[in-house]
């Protein structure tokens, strides 16, 4: 055990609590020329679907105050091409735990994708994305209904031998009901938050900026909402939690851990500052030394005491 190591699950351990968030780090191969991604505790791949997906048309990203909106719409190669084109390179170059982010427009698609992925050893866990705001069916429309969250989680659990981490949306009236639904469905862990539903206006063109009108709001702007959701989740569950939303530095990581996250994932700010991971790890290490912690997990949930 090192100071930063995380025993997230008995069968899922990270060397440190910093993961790359789904959708902001491609398939973990985009930044090989920038830094060694294997310094991360783990990596969550870009959202995957059974069939290839083109995503949304028009502009897909726009900056907002301390944040950004995206309406990518889960563009990805689809399972077959992913396995043929991306997975071999991931296997060759990525030595940290690799988590697939799985998506579907029907519960059956989630299950089928989970089944297909089961044989691929390199994928050590599934992040069940029930929270994408940028697709017409599936995603957030499932993740905002407790019964759906429960049923899909249960079905995917039965379809896979891998740990299932359910990724939830903050765009709900009752966060805790949704967390409990995932837990009761058999989730091995919870990941939150996905983006907040938002939009931007191009007043010159008198039109929404994004081709899809709405997009998902991410970045430092949403950190207060992310912290609150993780806090609420930790109030009702002992499941391990991946906190995500607006993390930009070690202090943010510590805040997420203090409210109950065991690990975190970083999205937007990794786009902005790809080289930040090394610095965060150093700062976390220093924090442990200054605070006399044997392992950083000691601060998980301190805000609840």
């Amino acid at each position, binding site marked *: 055990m090192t100071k930063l190591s995380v025993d997230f699950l008995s069968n899922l351990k990270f060397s440190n609590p910093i993961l790359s968030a789904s959708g902001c780090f*491609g398939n973990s191969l985009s*930044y090989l020329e920038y830094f060694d991604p294997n310094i991360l505790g783990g990596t969550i791949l870009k959202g995957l679907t059974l069939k290839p997906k083109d995503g949304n048309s028009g502009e897909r990203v726009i900056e907002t105050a301390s944040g950004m909106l995206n309406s990518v719409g889960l563009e990805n190669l689809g399972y077959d091409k992913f396995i043929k084109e991306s997975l071999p390179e991931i296997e060759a170059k990525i030595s940290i735990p690799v988590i697939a982010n799985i998506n579907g427009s029907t519960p059956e698609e989630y299950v089928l994708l989970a089944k297909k992925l089961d044989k691929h050893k390199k994928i050590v866990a599934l992040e069940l994305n029930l929270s994408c705001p940028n697709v017409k069916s599936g995603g957030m429309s499932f993740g905002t209904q407790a019964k759906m969250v429960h049923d899909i989680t249960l079905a995917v659990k039965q379809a896979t031998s891998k740990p299932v981490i359910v990724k939830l949306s903050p765009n709900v009236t009752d966060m805790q009901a949704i967390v409990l639904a995932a837990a009761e469905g058999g989730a091995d862990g919870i990941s939150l938050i996905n983006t907040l539903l938002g939009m931007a206006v191009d007043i010159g063109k008198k039109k929404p900026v994004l081709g899809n009108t709405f997009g998902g709001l991410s970045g430092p702007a949403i950190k207060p909402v992310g912290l609150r959701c993780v806090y609420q989740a930790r109030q009702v569950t002992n499941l391990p939690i991946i906190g995500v939303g607006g993390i930009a530095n070690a202090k943010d990581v510590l805040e997420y851990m203090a409210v109950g996250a065991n690990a975190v994932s970083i999205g937007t700010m990794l786009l*902005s500052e790809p080289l930040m991971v090394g610095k965060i790890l150093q700062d976390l290490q220093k924090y442990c030394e200054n605070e006399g912690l044997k392992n950083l997990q000691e601060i998980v949930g301190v805000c609840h005491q």
Partner: protein
Amino acid sequence: MVKIENLIVQENEEIEKNLFRLKLTKGSLVLPKIGQFYLFKLPGMTLRRPISIHLYDGKSLFFYYAVKGEGTQKISRLKSGEAVSLQGPLGNGFKEFSKKKILLVAGGMGIAPFLYVAKQLGEDNALTMIAGARSAKELKIVRTFLPYNLKIITTSEDGSTGIKGSVLTPLKELLGKEKFAVVFSCGPEQMLRALSKEISGIPHFVSLEKNMACGTGACMGCSIKTKNGMKKVCLDGPVFLDKEVFYD
């Protein structure tokens, strides 16, 4: 390989209202190819802003940019001696040719990448550039092309310099008179589409713009539909064959 570095501002000159030329130390970033771009990180901004390489003179990197919103405004406020974080060079860039007759067509800020093209390809090829803009003011930058080996035709919508009209105005005659082997164009999408309709039979490379977040193919923020499936402007582009992207 160093892909992100703080570079030092050597000069940041306002050439014309809201049009700036920025000169930066090269640092240890890889040398740029023509048509590539860099992402600029500005304090307080979430997303880096893409700006094309305007010129690399063997010592410094030059950028030619317009102040549009907050991001480019922050670039414009950088003072000599200050540092700014650059990521790049990124993208595929224009294909390098030799011993060819090449036509460059620039609309508005689309002229930015062509100074470097003129420097790199001017000696070995026969370059002609049509540079169009709304008015003479926006074409002040053309003076800086004079030391390089290329023919220049300017057009302005208000007739304040060169031919009155758009880049399309002199195009037809020119295409009739001279046989170009290849066309590079850069400017508003509408102009590129119009060019694409006029130009046939020769390869026409267009440099596209799209809002970007990562610049490295990680986020799918800049994807466009092409004849050959989804492509990323930041990674597969910004330069595409016109037929690949304007097929509808």
